[in-house]
């Protein structure tokens, strides 16, 4: 027999956020103790980027799991979504600080000339309105539009994956693994949309 858990919901929410942000805390600690090596920016870029991608996969996994009756993850989509946006925003801030030195001209040049920067930035842009409309109030105000708007997570995922794929120089292993995971998660939705009566 399962006993009803009586943890207040906000406690569980904080636990989920903490768990997902643990890798960031570890990076911050390593940064403070000088353990990230001679080029900490690179390690931080990798860490924040990877956890952003993993966050996307976790959030996209919530619906298929809920359909199989495991709704726990589904409940935390909002906080997970916001936290993954936090990772990706840090990723972008680091890029501005370390790679373009806050130079607008250099940023424009990067966007124009380097497709992986452009698609990465576009992924962040696509997620921005989702983060801004994540409150209950916004959801009420937007009504049925809200659901449509939040489908932006699908193109954002594809763009984020392209960003990773374009960064691979000689070993495609990582891009392949994420590709398979994202493809499975997106195909599941495609199939669900086809099965659903219109």
């Amino acid at each position, binding site marked *: 027999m399962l006993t009803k858990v009586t943890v207040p919901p906000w406690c569980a929410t904080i636990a989920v956020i903490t768990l997902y942000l643990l890798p960031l805390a570890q990076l911050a600690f390593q940064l403070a103790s000088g*353990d990230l*090596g001679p080029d900490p*920016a690179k390690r931080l870029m990798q860490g924040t980027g990877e956890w952003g991608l993993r966050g996307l996969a976790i959030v996209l996994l919530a619906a298929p799991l809920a359909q199989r009756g495991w709704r726990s993850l589904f409940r935390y989509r909002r906080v997970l979504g916001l936290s993954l946006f936090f990772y990706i925003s840090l990723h972008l801030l680091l890029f501005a600080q370390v790679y373009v030195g806050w130079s607008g001209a250099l940023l424009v040049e990067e966007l124009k000339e380097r497709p992986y920067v452009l698609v990465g930035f576009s992924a962040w842009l696509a997620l921005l309105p989702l983060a801004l409309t994540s409150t209950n109030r916004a959801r009420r105000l937007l009504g049925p539009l809200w659901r449509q708007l939040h489908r932006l997570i699908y193109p954002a995922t594809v763009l984020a994956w392209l960003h990773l794929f374009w960064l691979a120089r*000689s*070993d495609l*292993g990582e891009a*392949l693994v994420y590709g398979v995971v994202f493809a499975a998660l997106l195909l599941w939705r495609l199939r669900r949309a086809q099965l659903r009566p219109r």
Partner: protein
Amino acid sequence: MKKRTYTDCSIASSDITPEQVFLNRRALIKASAGTMAGALSAPSIAAAEVRAQSTLSFSPDADRSLVDEQTPYDAVTTYNNFYEFGTDKSDPARHAHNMTTDPWTVKVGGLVNQPGSLHLEDLLSGFDLEERIYRFRCVEAWSMVVPWVGFPLAQLLKRLEPKAEGKFVEFKTLYRRGEMRGTRSFTSIIDWPYREGLRIDEALHPLTLLAVGLYGKTLPKQNGAPLRLVVPWKYGFKSIKSIVEINVTAKQPKTSWQMLQPSEYGFYANVNPEVDHPRWSQRFERKLPSSIFKPNRVPTLPFNGYAEQVAGLYQGMDLRKFY
């Protein structure tokens, strides 16, 4: 010779050199983590590491050396691109110890009158070693300043007596799957062995060095032991590591990165802030060690600061086309 290299704390301490000094160092870092670890650990790591390499005798070549702050030994030996051992910067320091570098022979041949096999000992005793402090600029837009020990490639080439039709020099890295985990990755698209090449006048240029050491000791394996090329005015990928073959050729040799992605990597690969790489702007570089609050971004110089010495080699060439 058993040598293991410090990389980061994710390695079990049992996997690292059993030297007492090493354990003390780890305790020291742990105790001071978050406070002065950065400042304290660098010199002590260097001390432990240097002991594992043997000392070389050489004379400093002040004329061909930079007067610049040298990148700490620790950074030079833990932040490497040596894809034979993995694509992460810390992979070579972690896995290169698997490579056997003793005995070591270099096959020399092609269009020369004196082909043969050279043992490392002959190379080390046959040439006067010099120390050259050079800028090292990676195509990924980071850079270091490294005190190399070696001898000009020209001295070796002259002994081989290249024939008149020899216009290029080709180099190959050791390819030993059993000892190089990166070459066993089935998602890697590099066609091993790693190969590089130079035009013969570039190869004969007095700045072009065959390095056998750095910081006064023999090369650590992750830096391309026991013998590597250093061409300071070109992007780092031209400075091929752990060389087992040198051939003089008539035709321009195929080079690994160019074979992989010709639109991104050229044969010449001269450091050029004016010609961007599709992935990285080449106008600036992060001079390591860099930190997030002080990225240490400095403008990149044409020919990596060696224009005065080498620009003449490329007179009349369109360097946008021959990148």
